[in-house]
Structure formats: C-alpha cells, structure tokens
C-alpha cells in the first residue's frame, strides 16, 4: 500500500483546550479510512486540520506536521492544498445558485477548465456522485430546492469537479434518512477507486460498512487503528470494544 498522508506528532489546541494529543496516523492511497469516536474526541478537529480549514479559526493552534505525498501541508499554499484535499461538511451547503453553477463554480474561479469542457465536467461529476439521472433535466434550477440527500450528493459532485486527490467526509450522513445515506455510501465506495477518503462518522455501522480501515478516537487520542474487519471482530483495546458494542458513549 502507498502512503498518501502521514501525520507526525500532531497536537491541536483551541485556545487552551487541547483537541488532539500527539497523533500519529497514516492514510493509505485509495482507502476509506473511517474515524469513529464519541463527540469531543477530536475527529472533526483532525479532519479540519488535514485541509487547513482550521486556519480560519483564530483560536486554533497546533504543533506537529502533516505530509501529503511527502510534502508538508503547512508549508503549502492553503488554497492549493484545498484543491488537492476536498471536504464535505456535515450539513449539505449548496451555494445559492443553480445546480450547474454550483459544480462549475470552483473550476471557473480557479481557471481549471475552459467553457467548452465545463458541460462535460458537470456531467461527469454528477455521474460520479450518483446524481446525474435525478437532475439532468433541471441543471439550471436552484440547488436550494433539492432534497437533503440530493444536496449532499451535489456537494460531493462539486468537490469532484476540482479533481482532488483526497476527500474528507465530516459526518456526511448525520442529517440524512437511511435511503439517502445508502446512496451517499454507494457514491463513496465508487469514489474509492480514484480517490483517497477519510470519513468521520458517528455511525459505527457506517464505518463497518464502508471503511477499509477504521480508527477509534477518544478524548483527542488515537486509541486503535486496524483493518475494519479486524477492528470490529477482535478489537485489541477494551475501550474500543465497549464503544463499538454500544456499551459506551
């Protein structure tokens, strides 16, 4: 397996409160790494550090390093980094424009594609996000009017349009019904072929369904990381076992 992201001795703080403690973890290429753990365990902090969205938070500080393909992300241009490491938020956030424009937005601004190719980019992104068939006849209607599940897949398509290498999913199904969840998961498994995925989820079952490997975070510390099949069948740590069997948190 090829190593995509390597995190070395990462500590994160919001003001005086420490959110992540001495984290060492790697993400391998073309895997889905699921991160589970109770709230306040630092899962989202970790994710938001991976594409430096935490830079916008004035209270945030960190030490330790993160490498993307052996390149230190804290020495990269943050905007460039975010085109390589895309992020999907817990709540779907379609921008107040049409479905087409939502997807074409970033490629246009970043100057990635010329106008002729844009139609193809939009179609391909929507197909990869398993949304094309549902919206192909109304690409120029407002994205706000879509259902929650469709909005979330639109947001996935929007990320695919900038062709990142890594996609971060921050509890992407927390607001969705089981059918929409299944569709998002289906999209995720399809994306694994091309992308590396880090998935933060509160849903232990979801981690067991889609994760190649699963990591268990607790109180800002990495307790255990292993192949999903191994971790769920024979966890080494007592705390992990308690959490995945629902006796805790």
């Amino acid at each position: 397996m090829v190593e995509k992201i390597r995190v070395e001795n990462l500590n994160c703080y919001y003001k005086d409160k420490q959110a992540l403690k001495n984290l060492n973890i790697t993400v391998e290429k073309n895997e889905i790494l699921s991160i589970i753990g109770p709230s306040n365990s630092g899962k989202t902090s970790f994710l938001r550090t991976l594409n430096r969205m935490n830079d916008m938070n004035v209270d945030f500080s960190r030490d330790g390093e993160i490498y993307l393909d052996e390149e230190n992300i804290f020495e990269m241009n943050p905007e460039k980094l975010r085109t390589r490491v895309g992020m999907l938020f817990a709540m779907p956030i379609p921008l107040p424009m049409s479905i087409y424009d939502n997807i074409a937005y970033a490629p246009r601004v970043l100057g990635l594609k010329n106008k002729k190719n844009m139609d193809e980019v939009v179609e391909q992104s929507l197909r990869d996000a398993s949304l094309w068939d549902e919206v192909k006849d109304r690409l120029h209607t407002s994205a706000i009017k879509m259902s929650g599940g469709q909005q979330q897949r639109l947001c996935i398509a929007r990320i695919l349009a900038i062709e990142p290498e890594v996609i971060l999913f921050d509890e992407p199904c927390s607001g969705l019904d089981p059918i929409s969840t299944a569709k998002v998961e289906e999209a995720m498994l399809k994306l694994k072929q091309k992308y590396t995925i880090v998935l933060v989820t509160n849903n232990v079952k979801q981690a067991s369904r889609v994760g190649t490997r699963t990591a268990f975070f607790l109180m800002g510390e990495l307790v255990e990381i292993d192949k999903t099949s191994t971790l769920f069948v024979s966890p080494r740590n007592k705390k992990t076992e308690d959490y995945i069997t629902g006796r805790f948190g």
Partner: protein
Amino acid sequence: MFKLSPKLSQKIFYTLLAISTAIVIVPVLLIVFIIIKNGWSAISWEFLTTMPTDGMRAGGILPAILGTLSIVACAICITLPVGVCAAIYLNEYAKDNMLTRIIKLAIVNLAGVPSVVYGLFGLGIFVMLLGFGVSIIAGALTLSIMELPVIITTARGALNSVPYAFREASWSLGVSKWQTIRRVVLPNALPGIMTGAILSISRISGETAPILFTAAAFYVPHLPQSMFDQVMALPYHLYIISTQIPNMPKNIIFGTALVLLMMVLSMSLFAIIARLYFRKKRKW
C-alpha cells in the same frame, strides 16, 4: 391601594399603547398634509424647470434641484465605495484586536456627531485647507464623511446576513478569501447594501448644516458648470426663502418644501420596494 380588575387594566393599557402608536403617525401625516395643502398650487412644470426671478419671489427652483442632485450624486459616489470596502475589511478580514475595536468605536461615535460639526469640519478641511472653496466637491466630501458610518453599518449588516457556511463551502473548494467575497458574499449582500445606499441618499438630500458652509449659495444666477462651482441647494434654499426674504409668496415656500419632501420620500419608498423584491427573490 385599589386594584383594577384584569379586564379593565387590560383595556386601559391597550388604549394607552394604541394612543402612543397613533402619536407616532400623526406628525408625519400632518406634515405631509399641510405641505401638500399649501404648496400644491405652486407646483408646475415651470416651477421645476426655470430659474428663480424677482428676488426669488417668482419663477422656478431648477438651480436648487440641480444643485442638490449634483451634491448628493457626488457624495454617494465617494461614500459608497469607501464605505463598502471598509465594511468588507472589518467584516471579512479584520482580526478581533485592539485596533479593530477602536475603529469600530470610532465609527459608532462618528455617527453621533452633530451635522453642523461636520459642516465646520468641511469648511476647515475641504474649503480652506485643501482650497476647494465653497463648491459641489467640498459639500459632497463633507456629506460623504458624515454618511460613512451609516453606509459601513448597513453594509456590515448585509454582509453578516450571508451565512458563514457559504464562505466555508467556498474556501473548502480551494477558492481564496477574496474570490469568495467577490463571487459568493458580495452578490448575496448587494440588495442589502443597495437599499442602505438609497436610504442614505434620501437622508443626505435633506441635510442643511453640512452644506451650509461648504457648498450652498444664497443665489447663483446660472446652473452649476463644474465640481468647483458654488450651487444653490434645496434645503438651504428653503431656509432662505422662509426666513430671509420679505413678502415671499407662501405657496412657493411650501412648494419648495413639497419638492424636497417628495424627493426624499420617493427614494425611501423605492428602497422599501427594492427590499421587499429582493427578500422575495432570496434563494436561501
């Protein structure tokens, strides 16, 4: 102490509150009514499009209308871009430190300065120090400084009303802060900024004190030719003809007031309609 029955006290306070509300509307209606009643007879096409004659006791008020329009147009062209840029900086870029807090405090205080003080400030800086003389540009600069805090405050409100999540979504796609502002935040804040601007225009059209020493003239026999001309202005003209000129026909005084009032009210109305329209069109 005697005790009122709940029903009676309810009635008393209901009446009190209703009367207070009525008191708010009565002056507005009275002002509009009295001005229309006394001034309507003066309004005619000639009144709006000719020069005053006979020591301003006859003829029209064209130079005053044009003077006010040119001062206000200049002022808004200066204050709107500066104010919006400052609002963007304060809202989107400024870190919450001592300097930012001092700037915000200064803006609040600037809004509380009496308008005559702005007039004197404009006289000292623009008319005398910078040598613009009593002119359109000096008056416009004075008015624009006076209106800056209002523009900044309304523009910040409009920027704040754009959900923070939109910014995050845009940043997460690798779009820079400035591009996010330009493509997502500003287009969605624009309706709010524009209605604020229109209300500002209507407010500064009626201001007298700031232009008293900086732009307005008692009488100018020709129409404004350049930015450095003295001009007549509606509010100041109204003051002169009501107090300084003997045997002034009453209907011309009220007619002038009516024109000024209609200018201000129609702009406010326009702003209200625009706001309703954009609120309906808003997509989130």
